[in-house]
């Protein structure tokens, strides 16, 4: 009887796992199939040209690729000082206590806010603020654009990097830190010469995961990036990311080739985020294995 329920349980678990795999590969195959028409139509110029004019059936997705990379990287860069400070604060300096719990819940709370709310906030607070700066700088005061989107993204990804980096920092064995203290190191010297060298690849993995998330973030970015299909010339320009152009234009994609072009963008986005995630997870896994052995 026991054996039967065991086998049954095994079978259920296994088929669920296999089902998930099939689902993911199915998703990928569908994307590839539906993206084919535009590649047949435009070839590699889909990836390397920057005119996106659906009316004339010109599909160059380069502006979205560039827009995605710039907003995501900029977002991560802006977030780093904050997320790393929080991670070190919670992981090393105050790993327990009321203050720690308060900060931890505050950052976790940030992660739970729906992205549409970030979008609204960006539109009503950050964009006008950006506009003022742009007037100061004497450039076109769009308000919305890459810079605004990056700031919003930065806030959204702080909890991700912070929580992963915090856990990695906590993994640094205390006997190593004590060895350093016993040699007369100060707290900062311990962080710099023991904690950071030990944890840096894990922290990097956290940053990659955050980058993956920044690349895929759709709603908030679509609301504040200005949705312009041209190659951005400065970080204050309105632009589009892969995610935002899909969200923005999917409803109006009337003909097959236009739709196929958007699906091809989706395929690119899928590949981008998957690679980023797999790489990040791989690094973290390698690290945890080293931990356990």
């Amino acid at each position, binding site marked *: 009887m026991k054996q039967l329920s065991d086998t049954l349980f095994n079978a259920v678990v296994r088929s669920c796992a296999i089902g998930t795999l099939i689902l993911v590969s199915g998703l990928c195959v569908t994307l590839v199939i539906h993206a084919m028409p535009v590649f047949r139509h435009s070839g590699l110029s889909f990836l390397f040209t920057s005119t996106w004019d659906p009316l004339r059936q010109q599909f160059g997705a380069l502006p979205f690729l560039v827009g995605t990379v710039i907003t995501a990287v900029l977002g991560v860069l802006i977030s780093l000082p904050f997320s790393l400070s929080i991670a070190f604060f919670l992981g090393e300096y105050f790993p*327990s206590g009321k203050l720690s719990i308060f900060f931890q819940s505050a950052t976790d709370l940030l992660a739970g806010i729906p992205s549409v709310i970030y979008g609204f906030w960006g539109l009503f607070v950050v964009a006008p603020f950006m506009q003022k700066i742009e007037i100061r700088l004497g450039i076109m005061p769009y308000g919305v654009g890459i810079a605004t989107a990056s700031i919003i993204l930065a806030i959204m990804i702080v909890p991700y990097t912070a929580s992963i980096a915090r856990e990695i920092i906590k993994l640094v*064995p205390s*006997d*190593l830190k*004590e*060895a*350093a*203290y*016993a*040699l*007369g*190191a*100060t707290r900062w*010297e*311990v962080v710099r*010469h*023991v904690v950071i*060298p*030990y944890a840096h690849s894990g922290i990097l993995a956290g940053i990659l995961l955050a980058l993956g998330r920044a690349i895929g973030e759709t709603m908030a970015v679509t609301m504040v990036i200005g949705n312009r299909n041209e190659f951005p010339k400065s970080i204050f320009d309105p632009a589009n990311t892969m995610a935002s152009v899909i969200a923005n234009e999917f409803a109006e994609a009337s003909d097959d080739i236009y739709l196929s072009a958007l699906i091809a963008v989706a395929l690119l986005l899928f590949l981008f985020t998957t690679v980023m995630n797999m790489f990040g997870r791989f690094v973290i896994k390698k690290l945890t294995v080293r931990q356990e052995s």
Partner: protein
Amino acid sequence: MENPILITENLKAYYGNHLVLKDINLEIPRLNITAIMGPSGCGKTTLLRCFNRLHELSPGGRIEGQIWLGDTDILSLDPIMVRRRIGMVFQRPNPFPTMSIYDNVIAGYKLNGMKLSRVEADEIVERALRGAALWDEVKDILHRRGTFLSGGQQQRLCIARALAMNPEVILLDEPTSALDPKATAHIEELLISLKSRVTIIIVTHNIGQAGRIADYTAFLYLGELVEFGPTERLFTAPKDRRTEEYLSGKFG
């Protein structure tokens, strides 16, 4: 006792409100090996960690009383200065996994931001590794990671790391409990060879080990110093019944 190097006066140590060391009065003889023994949980590690003020880093860790090193009370010094003069070796070998053997030996200098010329560094590394009887085994792999070494070699690397700072005292907390008998014997020999240059305080559970290497032995019980004296006298003619019971294996 003539010329002790460390003297504790009414030393008390707490974890929060929990008193773990009760009025320890102890004189550690200079350039000798002193063993600290006692049943598990009696406060041996805590006592050792008072000497280099590592105890204060534990949550709730607090020290009262005096610990004299020469004519200064180390509790009134900057802990960092104390730790440079009193080195420590831990129970589990803990070389820094991100550093080479070479860098591990001079880690004390690097951590403290002290600049060393190449020649100085080479010299310190060789002297410390020779002191720790490890030089011949690692002289060709100095720039490999220290974590590739065997447990016994790692522990000697940790001893070299402590020696490199030229400390007056080295504290060892059960340094051989994670090692096999051969590596243990090697470390015991090494400690005996070192006592002409540095005072050694070693926590050990192994009565045989204390007998083999320690000139003096302190017996702690439930946070109290029950008995202290020359190892031979303490082992052959213990004054306290608790010491006798411990030595005959009744507890611990």
